[in-house]
Structures are given as C-alpha cells and as structure tokens.
C-alpha cells in the first residue's frame, strides 16, 4: 500500500463491499426509525399515520421499560462476572499438565457448540424442573424442598444458563493467553519470593488483561441481545421479572402486533448498546493498546 497508485486501486477494490455493507445496515436502520414514528399496528392495517414521538413516549411510560432496562444490564453484568472469573480459573486449571488433558479440554469447550434454544431447554427440563429435574432430585435426596428456579429466581437462572454457554468461549481465549505467558517471567517471580497467589495477582492477571478485555467486549455484543434462552424458558416472566430489552421489543411488535412501538424499542436498544460500548471502551479500551 505504498504508492498513490496502489492506494487508489485498493480503494476501488474494497468499495463494492463497503457499499453493500452500508446498504445492509442503513436500510433496516432507516426503516426502523421510520416505523417508530408511525402508528403502525398489524391488527389495524391501513390506518398507519405519522404520530411523532408518541411511540417513544408510550414505550418509556410502559412499566416494564425500566425493569427490562435493569434486567438487560443485570444479565450482561452477571454473565460477564461469572464467565470472566470462571474462565480465568478454568483456564489456569486447564493449563496444568494432567492426565486426559485433551478430552477435558474438548468437554469444556462443548457447551459453546450447543445452540441456545437447545441448551436452555435442556437446563429447563432436565435440571431446573421442580418435579423431574436433576436439581429437584438432589434436593429430595438430602430431604429439602425442591426449588423452582424459573419461578422464584428467573433472572438468576437465565444468567446461569447463558453463563454456561459462554464460559467455554472465555476459557478458550484466556487459556491461549495464559499459554503465551513467558515461563521465565514466572520463574523470575518465584525467585523473587512471590507466593503462588502474588504470582497470579502480579504476573498472570496483568498478562491476561488484554484477553479479558477482548472477552468482555465480544460477549457484551452478544449478551445485549439474549433472546432465545428467555423465550424457551420463562417467556419473560413471571410478570416481567426476566424480560430484557430484546424480549420487550419482541413482545411489543409480535405479541401486541404494535410494530411502531417495537421499532421505538429497537431504537432505544441501539442507544443503550452504544452507551454501554462507550463506557466499556472508556474503562478497559486502553488495555487493547500495545
């Protein structure tokens, strides 16, 4: 990419992809914003008319809105904490030489390959079901009342399910980062009199900071839009105890057939995602600089 000629050639060559991608993003975005300004209900076709910001006002005044907002942040934050802490610990464990390492690594990575609906259903029916689930069996075996996870702790249960899915991803990235740690650095710290805990705190953790940042950023993108796990387990309930923003948008547009309100929710979701992104980059973005 040195000469003027090769630079302009490069621009011409990438322009079709750029134009295509731009159209792919701009068209749905513009349509969403447009719909959000209409009274657009699928039950009353032909009555669409411009209502200004009424949809936003209604969406904002919806009692479920703040709950959904809070649930979204709790879900993202909860899963991030579980996966980063658990991922670091698992990565250190998997880095130890042990018998059957290959099989254990495959087992740890396996949940990532199970699709969200399936894993959520497995958790709901095989583990958390208060009558026939494994957890209920355990409770009964030790003489306790079975706990109905999805009724009494719906959001925590969903955080658990989603964490289980994302833990392998975090573990995998952190494991590769741990393996790139120079062993002489560890030995130097050992000679310097650092205990295993101090070695973890002063050497391993700073070494992992960049990988942890990557894990947090990538997971946040996906966790803001968790949907399938909620749909197949709690349907956002009981009440709206496990409704997040994505689910609320779905409920407005496809359960209440209110496309206008749903679009307004979509735009709010975009704004929330950007606020979260700005905060994240402010907090941890500097870790990505070499």
């Amino acid at each position, binding site marked *: 990419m040195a000469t003027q000629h090769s630079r302009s050639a490069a621009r011409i060559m990438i322009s079709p992809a750029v134009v295509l991608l731009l159209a792919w993003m701009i068209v749905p975005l513009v349509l969403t914003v447009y719909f959000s300004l209409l009274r657009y209900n699928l039950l009353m076709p032909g009555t669409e008319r411009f209502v200004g910001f009424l949809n936003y006002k209604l969406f904002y005044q919806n009692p479920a809105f703040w709950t959904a907002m809070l649930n979204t942040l709790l879900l993202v934050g909860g899963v991030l904490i579980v996966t980063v802490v658990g991922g670091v610990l698992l990565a250190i464990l998997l880095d130890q030489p042990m018998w059957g390492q290959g099989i254990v690594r495959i087992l740890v990575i396996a949940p990532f390959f199970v699709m969200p609906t399936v894993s959520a259903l497995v958790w709901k029916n095989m583990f958390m079901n208060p009558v026939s689930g494994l957890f209920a069996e355990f409770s009964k075996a030790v003489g306790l009342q079975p706990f109905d996870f999805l009724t009494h702790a719906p959001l925590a249960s969903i955080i658990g399910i989603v964490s289980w899915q994302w833990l392998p991803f975090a573990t995998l990235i952190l494991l590769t980062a741990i393996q790139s740690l*120079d062993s002489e*650095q560890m*030995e*130097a710290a*050992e*000679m*310097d*009199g650092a205990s295993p805990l*101090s070695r973890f705190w002063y050497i391993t953790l700073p070494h992992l900071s960049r990988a942890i940042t990557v894990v947090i950023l990538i997971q946040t993108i996906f966790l803001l839009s968790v949907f399938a796990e909620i749909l197949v387990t709690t349907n956002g309930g009981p009440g709206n105890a496990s409704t997040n923003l994505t689910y609320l948008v779905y409920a407005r547009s496809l359960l209440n057939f209110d496309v206008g309100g749903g679009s307004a929710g979509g735009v709010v979701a975009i704004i929330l995602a950007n606020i979260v992104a700005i905060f994240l980059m402010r907090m941890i973005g500097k870790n990505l600089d070499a």
Partner: protein
Amino acid sequence: MGRITLDKVTKKFGDVEVIPPLDLTIEDGEFVVFVGPSGCGKSTLLRLIAGLEDVTDGEIRIDGQPATDLPPAKRGLAMVFQSYALYPHMSVRKNIAFPMKMAGMPEDEQKRRIDNAARALNLTDYLDRRPGQLSGGQRQRVAIGRAIVREPAAFLFDEPLSNLDAALRVGMRLEISELHKRLDTTMIYVTHDQVEAMTMADKIVVLRAGNIEQVGSPLELYRNPRNTFVAGFIGSPKMNLIEGAEARKHGAETIGVRPEHIDVSASEGTWKGRIGVAEHLGSDTFFHVHDTGLAETLTIRASGEVGLRHGDTVFLTPQADKIHRFDAQGLRIA
C-alpha cells in the same frame, strides 16, 4: 556469604540422566563460569542450584545449610535470565522493587536500594519507563538491578549476554566483571561462549553431557587441558588436534598445538603447506593451512604484519614445549 556445595547431585528427566552424580564446590566470592556446548546440562545445573528444578538425588548446601528442598525464594540467590524475564506491565522502578515488595521491606529502604542500584547501573533516567521502551542492554541492566537489590548470597546468570549484539556484549561483560569486583559476591555464570568464560571467570567448569570435564582457572585450562575435549573447547581459534603417524612420533595418539604456538617461516620448518583462507583481524592474522601431509587442516595465528597471502607456500614449526599429548582415551599424558 555464598559458599555453594554440590554433593553427588543427579538429575533425571524420566529415564534420561541429564546430570550424572556431580560434585562441585563454589567458594564464597568466586566468579564461576559453567561452559560447554549447547545441551551439555549447564543451564539445568544452574536451575538445580536456583531451585527451579528438583534434584533427583544428592544434596545442595548453601553456606553449609542443606538447601536441596528449599523453595527458590528461600535460598537467598538471585537469577538473571536469558530473556531478562522483566515484568512488561511494570515500570523499571516497580520491576526492581518487586522482590523487596514481596519480602515486605519498608518503603524508604526499598527506595534507598532502588536509587543505589539505579545509580550503579546508569538507570536513573529510565526508572519510570516500561521494559518495552528500553534497549536490550538497558533491559539487561534492569534485570541485574532486580537481582542486586535483594543483596543475595550469590548471583546466577543464565546466558545473560546471548541476546545482545557483539559490541554491547563486550561492554556488558566488562560491567558484570566490575560489578563482581565491587560487590565481591559469589557469581555463577552460564555460557556457551568460551571467550566470556576466559575473560570473566575466576574458575571455569567445563561440562559435557552433564559431566564435569575439568575445573580450573582460565589459564590452567588453557595451559593444561585435561583431555582433548577441553583442549578443543578452550581457546580461540581452536587448538589443532593432530592424530596418526605425526602424533605417534611424540609417543601419543593425539597431539595438540595451539595456533599461536606454531612458528611460520617462508623457508624452512617441520611441515610444509599451502595457505587456504587468511583471516586478517588487523592485530592478528589467522591462516588455514592445507596440504601439510597431515589429515587435518592446521590453523595458525600470526601477527597482523606477516605478508603472506592465499596460495603461498609456508613452513610451520610447532614450539616443542607447547605440544600437548593425549592418549587413546583422549586423556592428557603428563
């Protein structure tokens, strides 16, 4: 104090015996160099002393106290690694402070020692930089600084100069020697470079395949190599080792003559040969002489002013009192 004794120390990796039972005593304040070709076990031996590897059998004593089962930090030794092993996310100051911080030393004492070390190593202007912003030689000095603030019983150096360029290496070699003179602390230094061994050591330990081939001062090893391996390893350029009929004339299986102990003449001498490559270093010239009637190419060292060139015919005479004789096992014949 730093007197280190190895008593029948053995190291096995699985079934492979890397270091057969080995005895060695390192006196307090000595500069000892472990030298040998790569894979001879010199780094392993250093790591055994440091405590980074477990001893399979035998005992290590530091100042008379058994240290075989002590963890590395409790042995009172400091190590400088080949890759420097600086902590990349800490400033130079924090790197140097790390061992003291781990030992829970008071802040003002830490600061005093950091300042002393920084002054001694010319690092004062770099204390707030990260290792990534330093040159190779500066990183090396930080690694040494991190070692000296602990005031250890002995320093261990694992090929510390091998990542530096030639000019810097000579400079650092001098600095480490000066450091040793000043601190008067035991130093153990591992290298594969016999020039470093010769120039720095009080005592050289030549290793081959985990065995000690010879222990002695640089000049002892140069003058009286115990066998053909040491003879060929110590000295640059290498000693000429000649086998066959010429050796038997001297009552030996192999004779060795150093390049600097062969006299060159244009008219008469013991061996007649033709000059192949001539390496002019300015102060010296190395000639590689072929067609002498011996199986081996001879290397000779002459002063820089000798006016001989490629293709010239020369006559060579070994200095009679400087011929080393070795028997069929390669051992020196006294």
